[in-house]
């Protein structure tokens, strides 16, 4: 009994103990992942080399890199859509290498909504595979359409929505499935600058509300810093480094103009420019 009391004193508060114990086990782990393609003749093309990444529960992580650095390949490997040449992908300590599943929900850059389904039917798409009853599906769909603010568009077809709205539906569809990790592949890459910022604000609010674990890839350094708690910089198929973002959890768009933000941006850009 006394030992227990001492333990509590040492760890300042019980909630923090809880936080630490949760953080001990990564939600998603990428272990020594490499991807090598056979090039012309006997040449081998190394796209990814010995990638190691850990994502803890409730984290928002961004992978930043220039186009052609292999970040999309990496995300596809993590999602299980592409097998790695070597290495493992683990979700909650279980190997899921090369096997896509509902534990890793994905939002793509292009519009992947099914045009023959209404917005509500799109959001319900994954739920039918879980054997959820129609009534429960409807509740789940309504809840997540509310979360993304599109409850009035439930019965519209995707072609009637704007680009930003389509991506919000795609996010709602991924979230409704309650994945362990939400993977995002440049989700706002095809949007105009204004819509993109609105969507970033929306995504951060959404993450604060739901505390879903997110791994997002982007080439937009500002977007990465604004959204993430940690950034991995990817270059030439390798992790060049990891940068913690020491900004307040709740962020307004104005933070992009603050000196701290600009300092981090400089740090990230310098790391991206480094040659190994």
């Amino acid at each position, binding site marked *: 009994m006394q030992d227990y009391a001492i333990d509590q004193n040492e760890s300042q508060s019980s909630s923090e103990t809880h936080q630490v114990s949760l953080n001990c086990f990564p939600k998603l782990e990428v272990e020594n992942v490499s991807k090598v393609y056979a090039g012309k003749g006997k040449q081998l093309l190394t796209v990814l080399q010995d990638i190691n990444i850990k994502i803890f529960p409730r984290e928002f992580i961004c992978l930043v890199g220039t186009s052609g650095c292999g970040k999309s390949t990496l995300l596809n490997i993590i999602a299980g859509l592409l097998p790695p040449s070597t290495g493992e992908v683990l979700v909650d300590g279980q190997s899921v290498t090369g096997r896509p*599943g509902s534990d890793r929900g994905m939002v793509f850059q292009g519009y992947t909504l099914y045009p023959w389904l209404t917005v509500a039917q799109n959001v319900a798409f994954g739920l039918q595979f*879980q054997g959820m009853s129609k009534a429960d599906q409807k509740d789940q769909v309504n809840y997540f359409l509310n979360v993304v603010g599109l409850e009035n568009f439930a019965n519209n077809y995707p072609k009637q929505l704007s680009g930003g709205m389509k991506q919000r539906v795609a996010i709602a569809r*991924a979230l409704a499935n309650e994945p362990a990790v939400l993977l995002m592949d440049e989700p706002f890459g095809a949007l105009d600058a204004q819509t993109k910022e609105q969507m970033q604000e929306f995504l951060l609010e959404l993450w604060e509300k739901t505390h879903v674990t997110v791994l997002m890839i982007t080439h937009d350094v500002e977007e990465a810093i604004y959204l993430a708690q940690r950034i991995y910089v990817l270059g030439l198929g390798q992790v060049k480094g990891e940068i913690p973002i020491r900004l307040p959890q709740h962020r307004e768009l104005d933070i992009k103009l603050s000196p701290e933000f600009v300092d981090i941006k400089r740090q990230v850009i310098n790391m991206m420019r480094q040659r190994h």
Partner: protein
Amino acid sequence: MFESIPNPPPELIKRQYSYLPNSTFWSIRQGFPRQISIVLIIMSLVLPLTVWTIVSTTELVPATFLPTPLAVLSTGITMFAENNLWADVFASCARVLAGFVLAAVIGVPVGLAIGTFHSMDSLLSPLVGTVRYMPTTGFVPLIIIWVGLDEPSKILIISLGVVLYNIIMVADAVKFIPNEMINVAYTMGASRWDVLGKVIIPATFPSVLDTLRVNISGAWNFVVIAEVLAAQNGLGFKIIQSQRLFRTDRVLFCIMLIGVIGLFLDYALKWLSKKLTPWADQVRH
């Protein structure tokens, strides 16, 4: 910091830019006046009809070779009123329908399989690709030897002529589905069977309807071939019978009747596909 830029060489100063000359008639994707468009549309139908009328009424070509448009029309009315042409229209339509349905029932699933699975692609594509270049008309004598001269052989000829195009076009439509649309289903826990049934089939549905619409014209080609060879009725039979009697007016009317039926079917299927797929982008022609 910068070196001063030297004066450009004289040949650059005299440089001529090239500009696009104005043109209305030959404009490429620059918009086209509606009035000119309407005039041209009318001309495209009226001009050949006028030439035909002039050539035939002035007997530049003897009437036995080229009857006047009015003569053809009145022959047609007579054929419907006295020669029971309806029965022939019905017989040909029934054959086209049967052959076409058979070609769709075989062609669509095989096309979906080839487009979806690499294994089926490797297994079936070489066969389909080879048989496609063998003329269907060449198979007709064989079909008659194997199946006989009755209805089944006619239906088989029509199906054989259409089915390969169905397969190839449906398989292509599947390959046009973006990878992401399939991958995102896997990340929501869908099985391969779910992907086939809930993504690939609905995604290709408008293209499948389009394929069938385009290929029904092929079915009309082959029904004529089938009926020319062996039949007691049908529009193709009427054509060959009229040829033996040197009735060019009847031949012309039957050909044009098939054209009108084809045009009508085309519009009907277009309308149907619009009704069935209100979600699709209506850019198809």
